């Protein structure tokens, strides 16, 4: 029996009120707020968070493949799945793959994972989907799009939702696109895009899968489907004959926004967080065609370990003070960051040599005296034993703030830089910047956790490492 064995999600800490966007550009605001990635987040870092959420209760050594789906990969050439696999500390013999370019990427990755497990080439596959799309400043898209990530693990034991059926179709239609030189999502005229693209394809897929498996709307406890926005979501529910109140999974349009390639899977995760054994769920995504699935929730759902996913991350938030802050964070304009030497140099060699520490956040534990250090120390600070240590992953450790400063001089998109010393529960220190924080709320002894972020773009590539943040 193959199906979903675990789920996870991530929603960034910050929200932008759509009234603020309307304030900046004039015109009306759609309802609510959208989740926005911090300046040090991108699709890769959000996928790492979702993967970590999904890996709760799973031995990381047992994962055989990891996929990453996004339309906003931070690289045009360089695999993101490999970085996620390193940051989540998977085995080196894991198959990694990126599914790029399509809003349907998350469910395509899911299909590939199901096929791999069914065919026996993998026992457990982790599928991540993450997006961080930009609408042209002042456009409707800018208000609609939100940032977030989902992860699901596919396997053949401990299945919490089996796959009873699936259906896919493609469509060649120029509805939404970004060419290799576009930063912002473009689209053809709204009425054409909705009528002949989204509505037609989704209806075909959902009626197709129901016919194929002899099911009717009343057979489903929940229907989870992609929609470009709240209005289209509601219209589609009615067209398909589902009761918007009891059957349709909330699209979170007023709290999260449309998260692109991650959207359908994020809604699925939200549905699974509430699901009961026996529930039948219909899942459908859209983008250059459609994927639809019939899922059946099993008794195993009761055994799933607690983790932060949609519910917890939706509740943990802070409003950006204004639209300008969003402009800064997403680098929509060049903004003064102080006349400091462009220090953010890097070395691909150092990053490669220190990859266990940089990505997996490994420290060393002295075999002789048991002391723990980050980064790993060849000669123990306490007993001076040479090369007698084992590497220990510290990324899940929590800690307390030992000391801090609010550095206004450090070049940053989001000053002040809160340089922090964290005493980790395992008995070692973490030294680095604090992110997702309110400078006025920082105080000694506050509880902190670690999060994988983009540090800078030294040497023209993205340099990732861990930061601390107030416990969410």
């Amino acid at each position, binding site marked *: 029996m193959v199906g979903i064995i675990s789920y996870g999600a991530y929603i960034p800490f910050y929200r932008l009120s759509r009234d603020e966007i309307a304030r900046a550009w004039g015109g009306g605001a759609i309802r609510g707020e959208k989740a926005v990635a911090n300046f040090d987040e991108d699709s890769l870092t959000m996928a790492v968070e979702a993967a970590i959420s999904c890996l709760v209760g799973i031995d990381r050594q047992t994962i055989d493949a990891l996929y990453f789906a996004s339309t906003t990969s931070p690289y045009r050439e360089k695999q993101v799945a490999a970085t996620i696999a390193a940051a989540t500390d998977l085995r080196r013999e894991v198959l990694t793959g990126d599914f790029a370019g399509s809003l349907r990427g998350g469910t395509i990755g899911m299909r590939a994972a199901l096929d791999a497990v069914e065919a026996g080439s993998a026992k457990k596959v982790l599928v991540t989907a993450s997006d961080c799309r930009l609408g042209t400043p002042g456009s409707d898209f800018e208000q609609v799009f939100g940032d977030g990530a989902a992860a699901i693990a596919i396997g053949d034991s401990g299945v919490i939702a089996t796959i009873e059926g699936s259906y896919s179709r493609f469509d060649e239609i120029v509805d939404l696109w970004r060419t290799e030189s576009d930063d912002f999502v473009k689209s053809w005229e709204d009425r054409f895009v909705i009528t002949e693209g989204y509505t037609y394809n989704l209806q075909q897929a959902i009626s197709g899968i129901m016919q194929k498996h002899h099911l009717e709307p009343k057979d489903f406890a929940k229907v989870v489907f992609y929609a470009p926005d709240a209005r289209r979501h509601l219209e589609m529910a009615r067209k398909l004959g589902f009761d918007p109140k009891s059957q349709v999974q909330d699209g979170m349009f007023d709290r999260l926004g449309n998260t692109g390639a991650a959207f359908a899977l994020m809604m699925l995760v939200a549905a699974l967080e509430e699901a009961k054994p026996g529930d039948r769920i219909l899942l459908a995504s859209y983008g250059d065609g459609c994927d639809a699935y019939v899922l059946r929730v099993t008794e195993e759902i009761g055994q799933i370990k607690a983790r932060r996913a949609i519910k917890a991350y939706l509740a943990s938030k802070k409003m950006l003070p204004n639209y300008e802050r969003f402009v800064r964070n997403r680098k929509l304009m060049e903004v003064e960051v102080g006349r400091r030497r462009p220090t953010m140099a890097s070395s691909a060699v150092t990053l490669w040599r*220190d990859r266990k520490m940089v990505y997996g956040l490994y420290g060393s534990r002295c075999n002789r005296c048991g002391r723990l250090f980050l980064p790993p120390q060849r000669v123990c600070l306490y007993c001076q034993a040479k090369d007698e240590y084992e590497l220990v992953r510290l990324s899940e450790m929590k800690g307390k703030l030992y000391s801090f400063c609010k550095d206004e001089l450090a070049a940053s998109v989001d000053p002040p830089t809160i340089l922090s010393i964290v005493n980790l529960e395992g008995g070692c220190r973490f030294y680095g910047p604090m992110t997702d924080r309110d400078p006025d709320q920082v105080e000694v002894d506050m509880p902190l956790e670690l999060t994988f972020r983009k540090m800078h773009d030294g040497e023209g590539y993205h340099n*990732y490492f861990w930061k601390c943040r107030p416990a969410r």
Partner: protein
Amino acid sequence: MRPEAIRDKVAIIGMGCTKFGENWDKSADDMIIEASFEALEDGGVELKDIEAGWVGTVTTGGTGSLLSGPLKLPYLPVTRVENGCGTAMEALRNASFAVACGLYDLVLVVGVEKLKDTGLGGLPEFMFHPVYGQGFTAPGRWALGATRYFQNYEIKPEEGKRLLAKIAVKNHHNGTLSPKAHFQREITLEQALAAPIVAWPLGLLDCCPVTDGAAAAVICPIDIAKRFRDDYVLVKGFGVAMGPGLGKEDIDYVYDRLPETQAAAKQAYEMAGIEEPRKEISLASLHDCFTIAELMEYEAVGFSPLGGAKQDIEAGTFTLEGELPVNTDGGLKSFGHPIGATGLRMCYEAYKQFQGKADRRQLKDPKISFCMAQYGHPGFLGPVVTILGRRD
């Protein structure tokens, strides 16, 4: 360690120091020439009699040719040394070893830094690692010490900032009495407290400026010093304690004191034969790159007991009129901090005080001076101490 190998073996017979400041119109070479010739003339020494040179700089040059070039030293042994903010003292220390062992009679020691040609506010940052511990500033790293110091001694941040402001006011005042200081301006406590934040809790007036400058010394064995002058100054002892720099990694490293500085002071006291520093020392130059550094150093070098800096600051212990004047020339805060020159600038002040040539800031009957310049920040310090004495 055998203290007698260095104590009272080496004499400083001439010193020089440029005006410290934003020396737009002076190159590093200009400043080296100016400081060196002032020292030579002060000691009555001819350039041609110099046998070897040590030159200290952090960013301004690479080799000993930094000194032999502008001075046209003819094929002499010249070594460039670098040890962070203690660089100039390291030049003096290594030159002193060469003189104490009897190899040379006359050695020129120079420290120089040309920072204002970079066009940057603050010091250049160095890449230790592409991502770990990267992207922070010197004031930020010192502010970690301030936060922890205040926390441990239950000092409210406003109260702590007031203590730091008193140090800034004192050092600015002393700067007004030093014609060669970068800043020559009194500040008030209110101004110091109201200054814009650089790295909370440190404000702008808690921070030393970015400064150009050079300082120089001519040294010789004690037995020939009298040939040059009667009021030469004696090298009493040195201390250097390069910490492993593991405050970031060592959960037991406490940020409310400076263990490296404690160790360097202890070495120097032992070498110089000082048992009760607060009583025996007449004046001190401490490394006030930030006011919190001076505060923590009072305790680290044994002038105040641990946690006792507050009481001493409030009592005015370290003012010009106080029991143990600290940074009589204005310190890094007012005199400025051209990194590779700072250590010799501190010695220059001691030298002038001993000779009674310290103008309006002249102390009465100073005998022993403690100078300490240190690289780094709490958790990662490299202090260098020089103890000098007046010839009795």
